[in-house]
């Protein structure tokens, strides 16, 4: 009896210590990198890069392994922040308010596209933006939809407090809005925008094409990982621009690639092409590098970081919008120079543009 008791105690202690150890143990670094992505028109090329083994080819070239994992959007960014992934596709806004604000220094190495109509404010009963005063508006709170709404209201002399925001999950926002005629306004993104617009009597009163270059979709890599393994950046950029080249070719080859992307996104090729129309893809590495290295992006990021700060997204204790530093390719820094957490890094795009990755 005493022996059994001692054994049980031993096991209990072992379990206890093991759990303490597991929680505190740092993750072992291997040469395999995990890249997480989620479904969005501008990110489907990543799925194709994996599917067509283009990504494997580039990884092999640089002597690493890249594992591509599909997740839901917010969980994917959470996994990235928790360091369970080395790279993740996200918008500039989440890059700033999720990893960067929690001290996970993040490098945006590929400027994939900007939303050029993919996010939209839709109304029924012919309501304009100025009529929104006092109305309920469904959207995913604190997302780019929220940002778009605030910009739309600002441009029309209204304040956020003039409307009532109903936080609605993106899983239900479209069917609920379509079925519920009492709901008069909704802000969401594609493909949901397309789905809602197919209903009669819906008006697209404002969309992201009125604020071009503000909602950016980037490939974000943890700076710490990138510093140790720049080959990850090279492999990702190489694979990405190979896919971009295929997509921007016209004809059967591009269609075949896009067909695969459409399938993975759960829509038809025609629908996918329609979504790409409202997505301003940077098919050429040079364009992407030029935009990232230009001065316009700083002005756009300034809107975004101010939105983030005023909505508490930089942390509720953040004292000023400058608390998180954002660095640009020309070396200039927006915000705190001692706390640079978001870096727009155009190195790999430049290499791709100059053909140095071949």
């Amino acid at each position, binding site marked *: *009896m*005493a022996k059994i*008791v001692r054994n049980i105690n031993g096991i209990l202690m072992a379990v*206890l210590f093991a*759990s*303490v150890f597991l*929680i*505190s143990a*740092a993750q072992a670094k291997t040469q395999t990198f995990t890249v997480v992505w989620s479904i969005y028109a501008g990110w489907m090329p990543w799925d194709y890069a994996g599917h067509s083994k283009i990504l494997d080819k580039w990884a092999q070239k640089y002597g690493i392994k890249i594992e591509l994992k599909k997740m839901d959007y*917010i969980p994917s960014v*959470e996994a990235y*922040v*928790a360091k369970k992934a080395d790279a993740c596709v996200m918008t500039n806004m989440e890059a700033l*308010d*999720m990893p960067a*604000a*929690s*001290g*996970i220094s993040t490098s945006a190495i590929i400027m994939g596209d900007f939303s050029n109509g993919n996010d939209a404010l839709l109304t029924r009963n012919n309501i304009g933006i100025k009529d929104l005063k006092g109305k309920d508006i*469904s959207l995913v*709170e*604190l*997302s780019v939809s929220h940002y778009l709404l605030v910009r739309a209201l600002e441009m029309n002399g209204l304040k956020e*407090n003039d409307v*009532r*925001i*109903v*936080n*609605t*999950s993106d*899983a*239900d926002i479209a*069917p*609920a809005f379509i*079925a*519920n005629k*009492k*709901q008069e306004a909704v802000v969401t993104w594609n493909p949901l925008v397309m789905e809602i617009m197919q209903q009669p009597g819906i008006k697209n009163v404002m969309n992201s094409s009125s604020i071009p270059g503000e909602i950016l979709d980037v490939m974000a890599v943890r700076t710490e990982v990138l510093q140790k393994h720049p080959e990850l950046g090279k492999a990702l950029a190489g694979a990405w621009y190979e896919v971009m080249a295929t997509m921007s070719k016209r004809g059967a080859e591009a269609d075949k690639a896009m067909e695969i992307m459409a399938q993975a996104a759960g829509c038809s090729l025609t629908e996918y092409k329609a979504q790409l129309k409202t997505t301003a893809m940077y098919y050429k590495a040079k364009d992407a590098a030029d935009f990232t290295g230009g001065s316009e992006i700083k002005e756009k990021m300034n809107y975004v970081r101010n939105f983030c700060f*005023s*909505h*508490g*997204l*930089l*942390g*509720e*204790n953040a004292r000023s919008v400058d608390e998180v530093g954002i660095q640009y390719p020309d070396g200039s820094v927006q915000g705190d120079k001692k706390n640079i*957490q978001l870096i727009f890094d155009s190195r790999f795009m430049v290499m791709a543009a100059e053909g140095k990755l071949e």
Partner: protein
Amino acid sequence: MISVFKINARPGRFACFVLPWVLFVVCFLLYTRASFVRHQENPRDKLVPTVTQLIDGVKRSAFEEDRKGDLRLWVDSWASTKRFFIALIIISLGILIGLNMGAFPYLELFFYRFFLFFDKVPALALLPILFITFGLGEVSKVALIVIGVMPTIVLDTFLRAKEFPRELNIKAMTLGASHFEILYRVILPNIFPKVLDTLRLNLKAVVLFLIAGESLAATAGLGYRIFVVRRYLAMDIIIPYVIWISLLAFSADFLLRYWIRHKYQWLNK
């Protein structure tokens, strides 16, 4: 040490006082340890906030106005508690349905199979349908809880009413009780504390459905807040909210237990 594993052990006063808290303390220590390690590595870590940060989070949610001018913890608690109680009242009607089903064979035929099937329907999967039929307002959230929990209460009451000793019914009849008197003055009072117990054990499901509903569409509520602040990884808000929700559910459970113990003292005799 060995006496720990005696089924007839009589724990001393010290053990009675200390043992119930041991696991709480262990959890707390593990947490602070993990948070310490993470903050050494990254002082701005938000995923496992330190205890000071958590206290600050509580202060900010409970005593400081947010940017909408609300003391959000109280606004959220009020919104959620209201939904909780409205749902609970509607669910309690299930007790009457179950009682009648158990007593009247025709009602049993009419309801039993339906509820048995309905009980197995995963309510969460019905959410889109609920939102489409009831909109994004309060009705759909309460409906979700009711659909999720009421069949269990109906079926449990039914089974208890069914197993109620027939002799007692006959005895009541010979004393001249009407059918309805038997139902409400003999069967119901006898099975009521047990049914309350089932209700109590289902509080967890109620809370679960409440949070699920709120996370999908709301302007206030405990579940709503958790899912919104998740957008900026404010674990310093989320963890206190989770503890607060557990405490509220625990208090509801405690009150029901207290009611059962004091109102139905005969139960344990």
